[in-house]
């Protein structure tokens, strides 16, 4: 029996005795093994049998007068709903404050006010409009400022609250006591327009920013949306639709054309072609037949098949991908550190600069000094935009990791994404990475014989495969598989015998047939000298050659080799063009390795390297000052992947070793390595541009708002323009990150 631990939030607890009441109620529920209620955190941690439903728990708590909610994993729906609600309320506030702000501006802005109705010019009317903007639309700024100040911290809202409050209360004073100002020869002019329009524009900026920010996390929502809702499970000979949560390992599931595959599993009956692009990024549908692995959330195109569920729930490939992407989005890129340090000091420093501006303008500025001092110090508070700095890196990382996931490139964390753009050397493991990892028949050569007339290659293959059927050698497997693929019917062989290190022999009807290497032929006194040149040629191509003879007469050669992946050559070519050095590492001898490396265009080979020494080789190259990426299958070469600056695991099916690598490629396409590097470069370019913009904006415009240009050109920044600049600044950073979505990483 499987037990689970679940956490629920509790509502309505008002005293410590409630703890016992709820605990008792929970323990009464059938299947609840233990219940622990915490009064301080208002939570219940319940140990339950797997069969217990959330509703049972929620009902038992409500039966004693309290309310329980699932504490963990706020549903996306809930998150969406809350965000949507916030957006609507924000939109209304923007509309009202900008409308009222526009009326006040019409009535008060120099020049513009000449054409305004008298009512709009009335200070009391302006006060009437500005007050709801300040305390209803702008309430959020105060609500954020007061607790922050209590905590002795400050943020963006603090700046807006202080800035607009100064403008508002100064204007209220002017409205009620104009005479006092006039006594000091200051024109009695309120600045309600500044307070209202600034609030309106900053809220507008926030509204646009929130909308754009929502789009940065679209990739993860898309991934979650891929999940099938139900599965057609065969139980007791009947096919029934069950919710996906009820599918268990071992269930037989039927999938029809056009349907989504609900969970991961292995095909047991039928075949089909499956579109796996949503998970692996590979656009061409993959043919699947019995014993092949199918991935949950992929789309069945043509056939109907039956498969056995092997991974369900949080174990499925899709769940792992979602978890990984979520984790990556929660990680921090090293480049963000500086922005973090600056933003934690930023707001207090801006407040200090604002006070300084006030003092300098009041003491040294032209008349009316008070008005200049107030307006410029407000402009400093309003123009400062710490949000842009804070958003610069995380938004780009979110978009970048999202694009990666869509292309079958899973990035473990922001740091990996950042380092990948500096990679200048890539080491590829040979077997299983550059090659398919399973030997295949590459050449069949007929040999002219005086005794036999061999009609075709398939005749040689038929003889060889018939003989090898009884062998367990991996080369034998390649020959038999090739014959099966070509639908060749095999003959029955008598007296089969394997000669270790040499080859195999047997009798077909009355004729003795032998298959093996040079040693085998020499042993059986078969003359192969005439074919020696051909054999050597195949061997220099990195192939293993076997000879086949009937009645001691050589009739053919079969070459077997681990074949190179189609995408390997192209990927290496692109990397060479990008001036990234490519190295192949392998346990093979130099001759075989050299043949493969040469055909791929790889310049450096590390041959005869034992699996346990791969890690050392990576470190040796790093010690030469290179930034190294290691590409392997993630299973046999995990230490080497960990040692590299960026470990890239190439996987297939559902057994990808996601944990072992910094970047996991869930397809066979080696071009994904190139894509990952390009994605990293593009993401870093976006981050750098964002940071440059965010820092540059503040470094240039804060002094301008302080009046740095005034002595030379008389330019001052009206707080209204300051708020406009501030609103566009954070929106432009998020928009720039979203532009990354259009980046082409396909090669």
């Amino acid at each position, binding site marked *: 029996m499987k037990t689970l631990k679940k956490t629920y939030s509790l509502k309505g607890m008002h005293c410590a005795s409630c703890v016992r009441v709820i605990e008792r109620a929970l323990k009464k529920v059938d299947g609840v093994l233990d219940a622990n209620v915490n009064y301080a*955190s208002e939570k219940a941690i319940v140990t339950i049998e797997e069969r217990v439903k959330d509703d049972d728990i929620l009902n038992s708590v409500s039966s004693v007068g309290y309310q329980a909610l699932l504490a963990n994993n706020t549903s996306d729906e809930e998150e969406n709903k809350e965000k949507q609600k916030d957006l609507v309320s924000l939109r209304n506030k923007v509309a009202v404050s900008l409308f009222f702000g526009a009326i006040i501006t019409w009535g008060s802005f120099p020049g513009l006010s000449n054409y305004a109705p008298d009512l709009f010019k009335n200070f009391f009317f302006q006060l009437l409009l500005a007050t709801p903007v300040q305390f209803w639309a702008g309430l959020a700024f105060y609500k*954020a400022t007061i*607790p922050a100040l209590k905590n002795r911290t400050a*943020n963006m809202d603090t700046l807006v609250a202080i800035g607009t409050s100064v403008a508002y209360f100064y204007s209220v004073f002017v409205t009620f006591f104009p005479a006092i100002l006039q006594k000091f020869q200051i024109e009695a002019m309120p600045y309600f327009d500044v307070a209202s329009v600034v609030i309106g524009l900053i809220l507008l900026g926030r509204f646009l920013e929130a909308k754009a920010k929502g789009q940065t996390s679209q990739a993860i929502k898309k991934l979650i949306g891929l999940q099938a809702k139900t599965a057609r499970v065969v139980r007791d000979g009947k096919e029934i639709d069950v919710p996906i949560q009820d599918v268990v390992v071992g269930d037989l599931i039927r999938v029809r054309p056009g349907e989504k595959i609900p969970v991961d599993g292995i095909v047991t009956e039928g075949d089909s072609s499956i579109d796996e692009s949503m998970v692996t990024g590979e656009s061409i549908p993959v043919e699947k037949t019995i014993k092949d692995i199918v991935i949950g959330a992929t789309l069945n195109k043509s056939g109907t098949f039956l498969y056995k569920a092997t991974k369900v729930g949080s174990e499925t490939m899709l769940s792992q991908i979602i978890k990984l992407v979520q984790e990556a989005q*929660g990680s921090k890129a090293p480049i963000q550190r500086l922005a973090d340090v600056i933003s934690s000091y930023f707001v207090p420093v801006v407040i200090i600069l604002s006070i300084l501006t006030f003092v300098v303008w009041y003491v040294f500025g032209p008349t009316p000094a008070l008005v200049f001092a107030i307006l410029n110090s407000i402009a400093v508070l309003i123009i400062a935009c710490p949000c842009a700095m804070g958003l610069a890196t*995380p938004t780009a990382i979110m978009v970048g990791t999202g694009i990666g996931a869509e292309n079958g490139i899973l990035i473990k964390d922001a740091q990996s994404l950042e380092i990948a753009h500096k990679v200048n050397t890539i080491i590829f493991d040979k077997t299983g990475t550059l090659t398919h990892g399973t030997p295949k028949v590459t050449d069949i050569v007929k040999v002219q014989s005086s005794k036999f007339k061999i009609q075709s290659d398939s005749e040689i293959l038929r003889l060889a495969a018939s003989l090898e059927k009884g062998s367990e050698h991996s080369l034998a497997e390649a020959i038999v598989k090739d014959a099966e693929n070509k639908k060749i019917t095999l003959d029955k062989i008598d007296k089969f015998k394997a000669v270790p290190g040499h080859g195999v022999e047997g009798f077909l009807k009355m004729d003795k047939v032998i298959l093996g290497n040079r040693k085998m032929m020499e042993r059986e006194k078969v003359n192969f000298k005439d074919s020696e040149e051909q054999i050597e040629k195949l061997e220099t191509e990195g192939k293993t050659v076997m000879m086949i003879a009937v009645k001691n007469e050589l009739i053919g050669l079969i070459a077997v080799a681990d074949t190179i992946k189609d995408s390997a050559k192209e990927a290496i070519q692109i990397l060479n063009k990008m001036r990234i050095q490519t190295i192949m590492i392998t346990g093979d001898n130099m001759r075989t390795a050299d043949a493969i490396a040469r055909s791929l265009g790889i310049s450096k080979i590390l041959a005869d390297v034992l699996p346990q020494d791969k890690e050392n080789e990576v470190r040796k190259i790093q010690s030469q000052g290179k930034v190294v990426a290691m590409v392997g299958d993630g299973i046999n070469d995990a230490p080497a992947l960990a040692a590299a600056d960026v470990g890239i695991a190439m996987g297939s099916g559902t057994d990808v070793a996601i944990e072992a690598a910094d970047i996991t490629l869930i397809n066979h396409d080696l071009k994904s390595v190139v894509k990952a590097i390009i994605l990293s470069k593009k993401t870093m370019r976006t981050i750098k541009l964002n940071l440059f913009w965010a820092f540059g904006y503040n470094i240039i415009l804060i002094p301008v708002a302080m009046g740095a240009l005034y002595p030379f050109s008389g330019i001052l920044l009206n707080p209204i323009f300051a708020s406009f600049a501030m609103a566009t600044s954070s929106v432009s950073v998020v928009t720039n990150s979203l532009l990354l979505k259009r980046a082409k990483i396909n090669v």
Partner: protein
Amino acid sequence: MDKVFVFIGGILGIIFTAWFFFGKKDEAVQARSESPEKAEVDILVKGGYQPSTVQIKKNKITTFNFTRQDENSCLEDVILSEFKIKRFLPLGKTVSFEIKPEKTGTFDFSCGMGMFHGKLIVKD
């Protein structure tokens, strides 16, 4: 005369601001020990993180309960980058998650935009 007052007032204002924001000392709050293997910390999100410095033990599974009572959207996400955790904090609700720190040191946690910070001190 008024200029002298403003000048002196301004200087005092600057000194006060610097002291107010930068002069505060955080006292680390220890995680509540629920059992030899488990501990728990409640953090209120209101104008920042209360407490903002939390001390926890290495290799001990610690449950964090974040409750946001601040409407500021800046605080709607909490990020513990060292532990690769990013959580949305719905207003007025408690969001819990567990971490098991495997190394000692001081780690930062912050809001989504990096405006508000807290410290996580992991000790042996």
